[in-house]
């Protein structure tokens, strides 16, 4: 048999009926043999055996024995062959004769002389299953399909990791390997647009292994539903993540159909303070968690009040929340990272329009030719007009009703195969205006607030034939915040205008089957123009000891300043796979240039003196996962992180122009266990150490331009748990629980205190079920510890301002009572003609009308206290028409 090419044994083995011949050499002479005179000094030796051709037409297990009389000449060849005893089958006899006539012997010798001799030879035909190679054979093949739509995926890298062999799926999603050795092998599926998956396959001798893989694609085809990918925490890309299909996210009760609001229900995300919509992630400040869309920073994920997200969810393909331990691709954040990726616009003409009592939104997209697609989306709110119709007409005095709108426009151009260009324009606008009258003019409060941001993002993407990928994303942006408040006689005015431009670029390539390298550049320049007039203590800062509603200090200052912060960060990320172990080291260099127009407060006629400085931060990070079997995965990671100073803190009058970057160390470890194919359990522990945080200078006589200092440190530790059932027979849901503590120490002489946003316990239970016939129902229960507050233990009378001032106890030593809420949702879908789909929903928040305290309030002399409760039952009725 021939040895196959490659390694291992030739496969498939072809069973063949072979002849295993027992050579029987009879030295006796048969009848008719010519007796040879002399002494046999050397017996004849068969040196060339010829296998007889098995006669056809017999059973596979047919055997036969033929006795032949073979005349061997004195030179060795066979002179004659006669059948001495038949096998009973002439064709077997004839076949044996034909073969024997081709035998070659060493001649016999009589008295040392070659001599002719006749022998009796037993030729036996037997069955022997023999596996032979007929050349290289495919013994491991399969098809890779997208998990939800079962669409074949081309270009997927399929690797036998332990053999360092790999191939790529064809247009039909098929792949094949030749002659894979028998045994168990580690199989890895990966690709620039794929969530890497690992499994094991066992190759058995003589058998072909055919498989079908259902994988989760990150870069979905235009016809695939958008996938909202929400990662509870990111150690390695594919390690710990919670992926929620858009339809799941839209069905979550309490989100009023806003896909992106599902983030508020994830583990590690605390409940935001009333009316803020802020993201409090793993005990970090809201400003420390950054939001990116297609790699570009935006100021907020939600509109003021947290009612709606600032980006239309239908334009979003995936959203990832990484509470900590993220890789070097992301920076300028001490807390977490929220990543939004916009979806490819669908081909053809599509769109939707939706309305409820809060706002109206819509989107339409259309293809122009085969390569160009254009889409626009927008949202406009009118809650300020509708709410008074169903409540009191002066409801605006009790509840701040923001007005907001947002818009997005996108142009996509497909260039070559795997190459595309897109232009995204987006913006968000928020406005809030109200006046609170009081019987006491010193308690008169007016508030005028407006904020908006715009981004223009150009994105070029190229997927190379070798699987490597390249993206480059230049952008420009403009943010503006105008806030004017009046607290009795004390005005507060803060205006910030920031012009931004930047560039993000990434090149990613699989160097070996177990090594992938990504190199990138994350550059951003922000030039801010700021103006502030008013009290030093308003806006308040985290760590300020203040009673809710307390008037700010009556000392007034003013400043106008500008700041330029340029941050150019090259980074490298390596993904190394060693069997079940994956290690992702990454490194980020962050040179940062900070300059400002004023280092000291204005004095007389003196000209302003500017400043500039340069700092270099190096952030190493490491993530690792280890798979144990097919269900269990261990994860660990961490790293060093830096965040540049906030331009609002760099005023020489209100802050400190010498502030530099703050720093954090993240450590995370956990486990992920697949109970079933759709039921998973995750548990993670985390610890963060923060340093060089900015806090108020506690000195009664601080130096000039030194009202803020970087002496604050922080620590955050805790654990989070997630039990999640993905869509299974119409049901999905999850239970999340986070227990944590977040502390701060304002300066070396002060004691540790609770962080203002600390929430010891956060629990969220939600479930949704498809009843069929277009009906869906869902419920959500939330529990969260109340925020820390500082107690008031006394007061004194201030005659000048005719008010009482509080005397405080230990900082953040008490808490607002915990928060409970039960929400419900019911939805009905109608389909018309296969093209039109109408969804009507009723989303009820706080179904039991629970009175949840949101703040502690006191009477005029702080001798009595009470609570202000949050929103009562809130029912939102809406509809959505898709085409």
């Amino acid at each position: 048999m021939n040895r196959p090419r490659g390694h291992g044994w030739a496969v498939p083995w072809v069973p063949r009926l072979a002849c295993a011949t027992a050579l029987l050499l009879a030295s006796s002479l048969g009848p008719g043999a010519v007796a040879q005179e002399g002494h046999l000094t050397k017996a004849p030796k068969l040196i060339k055996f010829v296998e007889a051709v098995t006669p056809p037409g017999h059973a596979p297990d047919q055997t036969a024995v033929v006795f032949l009389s073979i005349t061997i000449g004195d030179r060795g060849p066979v002179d004659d062959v006669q059948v001495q005893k038949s096998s009973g089958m002439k064709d077997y006899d004839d076949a044996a004769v034909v073969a024997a006539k081709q035998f070659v012997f060493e001649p016999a010798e009589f008295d040392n002389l070659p001599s002719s001799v006749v022998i009796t030879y037993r030729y036996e035909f037997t069955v022997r299953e023999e596996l032979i190679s007929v050349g290289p054979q495919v013994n491991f093949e399969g098809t890779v399909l997208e998990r939800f739509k079962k669409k074949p995926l081309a270009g997927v890298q399929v690797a036998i990791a332990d053999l360092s062999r790999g191939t790529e799926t064809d247009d039909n999603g098929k792949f094949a390997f030749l002659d894979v050795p028998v045994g168990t092998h580690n199989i890895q599926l990966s690709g620039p647009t794929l969530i890497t998956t690992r499994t094991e396959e066992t190759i058995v001798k003589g058998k072909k292994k055919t498989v079908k893989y259902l994988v989760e694609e990150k870069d979905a085809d235009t016809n695939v539903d958008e996938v909202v990918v929400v990662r509870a925490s990111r150690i390695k890309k594919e390690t710990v993540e919670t992926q929620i299909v858009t339809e799941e996210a839209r069905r979550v009760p309490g989100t009023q159909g806003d896909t992106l609001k599902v983030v508020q229900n994830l583990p590690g995300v605390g409940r935001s303070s009333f009316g803020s919509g802020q993201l409090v992630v793993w005990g970090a400040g809201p400003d420390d968690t950054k939001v990116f869309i297609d790699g570009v920073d935006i100021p907020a994920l939600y509109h003021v009040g947290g009612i709606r997200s600032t980006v239309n969810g239908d334009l979003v393909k995936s959203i990832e929340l990484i509470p900590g331990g993220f890789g070097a691709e992301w920076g300028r954040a001490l807390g977490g990272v929220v990543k939004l990726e916009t979806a490819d616009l669908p081909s053809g003409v599509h769109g939707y329009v939706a309305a409820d009592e809060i706002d109206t939104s819509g989107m339409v997209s259309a293809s122009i030719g085969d390569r160009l697609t254009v889409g626009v989306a927008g949202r406009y709110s009118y809650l300020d007009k509708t709410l008074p119709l169903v409540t009191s007409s002066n409801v605006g005095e009790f509840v701040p009703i923001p007005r907001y709108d947002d818009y997005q426009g996108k142009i996509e151009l497909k260039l070559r195969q795997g190459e595309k260009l897109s232009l995204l324009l987006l913006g968000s606008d928020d406005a809030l205006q109200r006046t609170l009258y009081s019987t006491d003019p010193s308690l008169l409060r007016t508030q005028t607030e407006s904020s908006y941001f715009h981004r223009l993002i150009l994105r070029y993407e190229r997927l190379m034939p070798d699987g490597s990928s390249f993206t480059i994303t230049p952008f420009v942006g403009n943010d503006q915040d105008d806030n004017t408040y009046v607290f009795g006689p004390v005005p507060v005015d803060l205006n910030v205008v920031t012009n931004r431009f930047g560039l993000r670029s990434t090149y990613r390539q699989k160097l070996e089957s177990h090594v992938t390298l990504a190199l990138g550049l994350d550059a951003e320049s922000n030039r801010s123009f700021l103006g502030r007039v008013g009290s030093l203590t308003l806006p308040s800062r985290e760590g300020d000891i203040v009673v809710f509603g307390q008037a700010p200090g009556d000392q007034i200052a003013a400043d106008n300043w500008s700041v330029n912060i340029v941050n150019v960060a090259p980074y490298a990320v390596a993904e190394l796979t060693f069997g079940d172990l994956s290690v992702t080291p990454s490194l980020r260099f962050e040179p940062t240039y900070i300059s400002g127009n004023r280092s000291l407060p204005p004095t007389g006629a003196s000209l302003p003196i500017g400043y500039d400085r340069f700092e270099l931060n190096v952030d190493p990070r490491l993530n690792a996962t280890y798979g144990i079997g097919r269900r269990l995965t261990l994860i660990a990671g961490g790293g060093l992180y830096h965040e540049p100073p906030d331009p609002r803190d760099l005023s020489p009058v209100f802050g400190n122009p010498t502030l530099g970057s703050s720093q954090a160390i993240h450590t995370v470890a956990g486990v992920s266990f697949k109970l079933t194919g759709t039921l998973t359990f995750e548990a993670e522990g985390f610890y963060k150490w923060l340093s060089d945080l900015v806090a108020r200078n506690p000195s009664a006589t601080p130096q000039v331009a030194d009202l803020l200092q970087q002496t604050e440190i922080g620590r955050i530790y805790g654990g989070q748990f997630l039990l999640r059932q993905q869509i299974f027979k119409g049901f999905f849901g999850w239970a999340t629980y986070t227990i944590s503590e977040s502390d701060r120490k304002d300066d070396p002489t002060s004691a540790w205190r609770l962080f203002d946003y600390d929430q010891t316990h956060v629990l969220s239970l939600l479930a949704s079920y498809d009843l069929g016939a277009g009906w869906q129902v869902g419920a959500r229960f939330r529990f969260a510890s109340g925020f820390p507050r500082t107690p008031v233990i006394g007061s004194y009378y201030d005659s000048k301002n005719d008010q009482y001032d509080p005397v405080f106890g230990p900082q953040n030593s008490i808490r607002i009572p915990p928060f409970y809420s039960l929400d419900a949702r019911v939805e009905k879908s109608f389909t018309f003609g296969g093209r039109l789909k109408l969804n009507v929903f009723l989303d009820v928040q706080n179904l039991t009308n629970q009175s949840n305290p949101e703040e502690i309030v006191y009477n005029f002399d702080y001798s009595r206290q009470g609570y202000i409760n949050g929103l009562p039952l809130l029912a939102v009725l809406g509809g959505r028409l898709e085409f």
Partner: protein
Amino acid sequence: MRRSILMAVITLAACKPDLGPPASLISGLRVLAVRANPPEAPPSGPDAGVLYELLAVTPGGTVIGPQPAWAYCLAPTPPSENNLVSPLCLGPNAQLAPIAQAGSDGLAQLPSSTCQLFGPLTPPPIGDAGPGRPPDPDVTGGYYQPVRVDLPLNDGGLLTSFGEERIYCGLAGVTEAVASGYATGYTMNHNPVLQGVTAAVAGGSAQALLAHDGGSGLSVPAGASVTFAAGWPTGTAESFPALDPVSRLLVTQTENLITSWFVTGGAMALDEVEVPGTDTATSASNQWTAPTTSGPVHLWVVLRDSRGGVDFGEFLVMVE
């Protein structure tokens, strides 16, 4: 974001629960005003002497002849402090400079360091640190020296209150022209003068209220709606130059006049009424609903200007 924090503050401020009677109802011993005469003084010189007076009241009327303890607070207020004074001005180990007493009023001279501790002058350095940051002025461009007054209680405790003396220190960190303009154009504050209070029962004519010691007082029916009007002479709201923090130039301001109203029975519609400086009115009105039970009701009106000047008066109303 920080702005959202403030928005939440505003959000809930109007949804307050019932926290008992308003500030205008006197239900126990309270200090209603601390008056300095003059209300503004320099730290030295012939105008430096100041007389302090206290208005302390109970449901039975003004507390006559209290024996409070007066002191100047010597701890500068940290810029991070929302309250009027530093916590170091409170408690038994407070940083204070006692004021000599003459009867129930304190006669004092401002501390020589007051313009450095609470005024626009550079504070003294601490150790090897560089020059300190002077305090910022209030909206009227003024600086104030806190004055602590402790009223002894029957249980041995103290009722602590603070007044503020506006201190004349000139301007710092301005151009010579601005400093010169301020020096020539600024007139130190004078206390406003409360000329009296009239009362008009619904549908009736206004009648002058007599001071609390002027007899039995005006009679009103139980539950009647009464309009009080507190008056002051023309020119009480003084104009003065103040440094605009944005332009760093002098602008002319006119004092706002604020009347605070306190009663021992019934209910005031407003705790305070403010007449802005742009308004030339010489009176402020407030509605009062008389209690349903008969008896005397004490009324106090405190008149303040926006530079710390104070006057006050007590009146008596008989409910029948």
